[in-house]
């Protein structure tokens, strides 16, 4: 005969299987926090490079040749800093999510992870190409805004395949990116807030909501 809890248990099973098969639930809050810290560190390095450049070259700016030469050097350094930051953030985010997948018992490279990865990658790759072309054309003003906008779109898209809250992080990135379009010159600050601060806040909230050991 059916016991009292059986229908409830069956419903719980159904819900669990639906979630597990359609969403990647192992995304760790710590991943967000780690990526945010990497971004802040990267922004700080970039900022000090720009300041250093500014203090050395403010007196030489009349000499066009030196200016252009060292400006290219600075841009190269900034691009390398950006790429290293991105890599560091990616690796640290991956490590924490890997650890979490051990706990949730969901394979890291399963069906849901593939869906999540692909659907995040598509907007990011499109954005990457747009930014690359902007750099080629020597238009650096909107790079930071573009990073934020495309990342926001990627997150909104990704939210269908992982914990739903990431959608709100996506909205925040989008708003920040769009606002920064009209605030040229402070791109780095917007970048630091979007990729640093917001990630840390998001990571903290997610940790509090899902991973905290409730006493």
């Amino acid at each position, binding site marked *: 005969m059916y016991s009292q809890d059986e229908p409830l248990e069956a419903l719980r099973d159904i819900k669990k299987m639906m979630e597990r098969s359609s969403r990647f639930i192992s995304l760790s809050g710590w991943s967000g926090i780690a990526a945010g810290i990497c971004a802040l560190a990267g922004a700080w390095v970039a900022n000090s490079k720009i300041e250093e450049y500014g203090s050395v070259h403010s007196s030489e700016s009349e000499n066009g040749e030196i200016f252009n030469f060292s400006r290219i050097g600075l841009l190269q350094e900034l691009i390398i800093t950006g790429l290293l930051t991105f890599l560091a953030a990616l690796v640290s985010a991956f490590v924490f999510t890997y650890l979490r997948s051990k706990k949730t018992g969901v394979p890291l490279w*399963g069906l849901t992870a593939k869906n999540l990865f692909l659907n995040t990658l598509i907007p990011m790759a499109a954005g990457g190409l747009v930014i690359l072309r902007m750099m080629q054309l020597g238009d650096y003003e909107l790079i930071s805004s573009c990073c934020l906008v495309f990342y926001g779109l990627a997150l909104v898209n990704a939210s269908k395949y992982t914990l739903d809250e990431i959608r709100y992080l996506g909205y925040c990135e989008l708003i920040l990116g769009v606002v920064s379009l009209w605030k040229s010159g402070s791109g780095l600050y917007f970048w630091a807030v979007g990729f640093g601060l917001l990630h840390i806040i998001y990571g903290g909230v997610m940790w509090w909501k899902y991973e905290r050991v409730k006493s």
Partner: protein
Amino acid sequence: MKNPIDNLNKVFDSRIRLGVMSVLLVNTEINFNDLKELLQVTDGNLASHLANLEENGFIKVRKGFIGRKTNTTYSITKAGEKAFKEHLGGLESMIRGIK
């Protein structure tokens, strides 16, 4: 009065068959290995449950190839969707009945 248990489908008594149907309701198509991983069951066990669901006309099987390896994918049929939803309704009325 109708007994709420009448709405429950015997086919879905098994947790594995229930799991397969849950997964198929939210995924248009899923292959054998992904299903095995999700439900954490052995090949033989899963295969027999899948055969049972197929005999009942609740799921569709499509055999394909990725390179030389066979890739069998499963999807839910209209009848399967209907039966599963009725089963859910049955569970619901049982819970109501208990309260």
